[in-house]
């Protein structure tokens, strides 16, 4: 029934105001938000402390746990296809995956954010040129772009050092995030640069650099922040995708290469693939959720002005 009588409509509105439905579940942090923060915080801590935690060596082979499911004495999450401790590998994997994705997004943030800010604030020809640059970068499918960059510059090879592979991977993923972050920063900076307080600062004789950093940037920050959180999630997934395609880091455990290696044992020992997959899922879910919360709050702030 689409049309309610007035009485029932008051008791149970068929159609809520659109914006209320959209933002109501995410405006507040809520229980789920705290879980997300807890998960991401805990994970970051584990990843940072991996070298000093009492973990097994992630590369050590234990013959007794080859393809053994979780909850073995001494090896809580069981072993992988060559008998390496899964718990230790998933934590060391978090270290690699988070390093790659967070660095890539920070790099993308630095470049894309700066370019977007300049484009949105200065407008004119510079803006047109930068927007075209962003559009071109966006017009190559992201995965294909990063895949070809990594394949060309650091194809899995004994001669290519692990450090180089990491750098290339981070740079390739950063190039993918630059246009996304750049566009959102530009759009937001464009809107904020119109405001009275920016004009006032101009009249007061503040330099462009100062206005951009002190007046525009703080207001643009929430929008960038929410997209950056999503960006980290995208980068984690991209690392996994690249690992499955056979490019990326191989010497150290990462969530992606754990899944790639576990594929051949999928029928016999599904936990080898399942454990890093669950780790990726939870992390991406938490990042997406927090990104949405930041975005919802940001919209509220803008609407309230």
């Amino acid at each position, binding site marked *: *029934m*689409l*049309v309610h009588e007035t009485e029932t409509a008051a008791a149970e*509105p*068929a*159609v*809520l*105001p*659109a914006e209320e*439905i*959209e933002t109501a*579940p995410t405006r507040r942090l809520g229980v789920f938000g705290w879980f997300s923060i807890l998960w991401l915080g805990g994970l970051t801590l584990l990843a940072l402390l991996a070298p000093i935690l009492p973990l097994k060596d992630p590369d050590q082979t234990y013959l007794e746990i080859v393809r053994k499911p979780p909850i073995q004495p001494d090896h809580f999450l069981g072993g992988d296809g060559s008998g390496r401790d899964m718990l230790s590998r998933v934590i060391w994997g978090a270290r690699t995956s988070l390093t790659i994705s967070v660095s890539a997004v920070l790099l993308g943030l630095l470049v894309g954010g700066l370019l977007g800010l300049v484009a949105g604030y200065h407008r004119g020809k510079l803006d047109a040129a930068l927007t*075209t640059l962003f*559009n*071109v970068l966006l*017009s*190559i*499918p*992201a*995965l*294909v772009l990063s*895949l*070809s960059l990594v*394949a*060309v*510059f650091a*194809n899995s090879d004994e001669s290519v050092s692990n450090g180089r592979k990491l750098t290339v991977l981070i740079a390739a993923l950063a190039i993918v995030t630059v246009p996304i972050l750049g566009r959102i920063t530009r759009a937001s900076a464009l809107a904020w640069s119109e405001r009275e307080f920016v004009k006032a600062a101009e009249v007061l004789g503040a330099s462009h650099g100062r206005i951009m950093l002190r007046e525009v940037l703080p207001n643009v920050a929430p929008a960038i922040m929410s997209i950056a959180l999503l960006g980290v*999630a995208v980068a984690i*997934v991209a690392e*996994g*995708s690249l690992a*499955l*395609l*056979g*490019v990326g880091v191989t010497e150290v455990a990462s969530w992606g290469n754990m*899944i790639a290696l576990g*594929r051949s044992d*999928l*029928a016999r020992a*599904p936990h080898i*693939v399942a454990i890093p*997959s669950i780790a*990726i*899922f939870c992390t*991406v*879910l938490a990042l*997406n*959720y927090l990104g949405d919360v930041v975005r919802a709050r940001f919209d509220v702030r803008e609407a309230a002005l």
Partner: protein
Amino acid sequence: MGLVRELGKRFLGLILVLFLVTLFTALLISMVPGDPVDTLLPVSDSSPEVAAQKEELRHELNLDDSLPERYAAWVNDFVHGDFGNYYRTSGADPVRAHLADALPVSLQLMIYSQILALLVAIPLGVISAYRAGTLFDKAANTTAFALLAVPNFVLGLALAYYVGVWLGWLPPSGYVPFGDDAVEHIRRMILPAVTLAAAQVAVYMRLLRSDMVQTLQEDFIQMARSKGISDQRVLWRHALRPSSLTLLTVAGLNVGTLIGGAVIVEVLFSIPGLGTSIAQAIFERQYVALQTFVAVLAILYVLVNFAVDVLYTVVDPRIRHARARN
């Protein structure tokens, strides 16, 4: 007048993007560290025959020419259907034949999953907009949100394991051409198509729902209802059409996500499409082939985006006028 100008501007943009994209792919081989010829022909003996072979290859790839010349030669070859070769010790193997085999397979997969995604997302989006705020709506939204956090390779592996191995309902990998055995073809395409469609369903459903919620508050819906038209009819005939424009645009623009996703899904399910070809080319370091496949995907993507954008501009009068004004 405004429209023609707008389309002209768009077309110039298309040319520029195509130029830059092909420039990137055409010069991909030049970016390979070291001598590309040594990478393509990894034979470490210095006999005169090998040296001659390498020299010939260097000439074929125009590696001694300047960059603009190299780009021009690449474009010339590309538009004439010369996509280079796989260089193997057994001899050169044209990429063209591989491309002709792989491209239709990838397109099939993308089309199947797009149709599947829309078939599932449209009813779900309409119903959850109609029942906005109810348990069904919340459940659908939460599911969609969770689904968005599942990387396609995780979903693919999970489906391959549970449906393919554990339940044994469907073959977990492999491909059969439609012409050979239609039933087997469909059976083998179900899991890859579902994997690829899942994330799209979530995106489309949420989009359609938020559009529909707004449309349902419009006066013409009130009007239709007060005339006594049934809910079903109002929803499907009156409200869906104005709400579906954004959905269709996004469905078109999503081709990029679909292409990236297809690359992974093909590798997971051993489907001999472009994705598998790309992975294979990377593994074998066949950069000439890689270059071609990347160029084909990028051009495909750019053209679809352009078509959707133009269609959108022409179809929706609101966009048309807003853009003409700017």
